[in-house]
């Protein structure tokens, strides 16, 4: 029996453009490739990707009352607290003697977001609101906790605590409980699947083909 090996055969058309399209809208790249290459299978696949990935993300996001897709300014607060306590790293994120930058620390603190990001457009307002708090997009759904807007009178700590209290109240609802975690898991898995879809748009389907047998090999 020959030993199968994985190769990419027949790279799909418009691979870079399709990957970019699937990055923004999962499956859009495959839909365009399906139309361009007259491949019904690829077209249907693109639609299935779009429905499943945005469906999963939307379900998890909506069921958590639009409170689980965000990037908080937590590391900034932790750095401030450590500085106030004498400079030694205590609360701030880091590895060994290295303390993470605010952005890196915030990504570690909210490690769901780096996965959710790959869902495409529906996850990106959270990043916008993290960087541009003064000109927020859909702030009721993607608020960045701890973001210090111009003229903000509350401290960052107060803002973060208020958000945490609101999230805790939500989790204590009889209809929520452990489902709170299930709902963010939906959004995170949707994002991870989004990565696979981008790769498929770029590389095309993987096919198993037998390795050529070398002459004289046992």
């Amino acid at each position, binding site marked *: 029996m020959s030993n199968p090996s994985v190769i990419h055969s027949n790279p799909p058309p418009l691979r870079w453009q399709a990957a970019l399209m699937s990055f923004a809208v999962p499956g859009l790249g495959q839909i365009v490739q399906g139309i361009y290459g007259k*491949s019904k*299978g*690829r077209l*249907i*696949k693109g639609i*299935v*990707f779009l429905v*499943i*990935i945005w469906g*999963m993300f939307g379900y998890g996001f909506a069921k958590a009352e639009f409170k689980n897709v965000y990037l908080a300014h937590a590391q900034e607060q932790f750095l401030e607290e450590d500085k106030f306590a004498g400079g030694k790293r205590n609360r701030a994120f880091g590895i060994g003697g290295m303390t993470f930058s605010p952005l890196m620390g915030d990504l570690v603190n909210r490690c769901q977001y780096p996965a959710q990001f790959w869902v495409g457009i529906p996850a990106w307002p959270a990043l916008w609101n993290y960087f541009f708090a003064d000109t927020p997009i859909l702030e009721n759904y993607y608020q960045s906790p701890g973001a210090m807007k111009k003229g903000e009178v509350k401290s960052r700590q107060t803002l973060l605590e208020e958000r945490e209290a609101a999230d805790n109240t939500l989790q204590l609802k*009889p209809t929520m*409980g*452990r*489902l709170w975690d*299930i709902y963010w*898991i*939906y959004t995170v*898995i949707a994002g991870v*699947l989004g990565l*696979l*879809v981008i*790769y*498929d748009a770029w590389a*095309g*389907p*993987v096919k198993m083909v037998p390795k050529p047998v070398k002459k004289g090999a046992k």
Partner: protein
Amino acid sequence: MLAVVSSWDVYIHFPILLVLVNIVYSASRYDNWGEILNHAVRGMVYIVFFLGMVFAVLFGLAWVVQKVF
């Protein structure tokens, strides 16, 4: 009774996630729908078998701990 129902309702999501994840994963490897569905079903069986084994081991351990201690 209500408490029992609410403690189990998280598991409703397992088959949903199992099916959706396997369809997307398989579809990212093949273009032909016959192959996609075949691969997806195999993936589901592997996952259910693996989780079933983990469940059996944990269930067995819980039973032993309960009997011994």
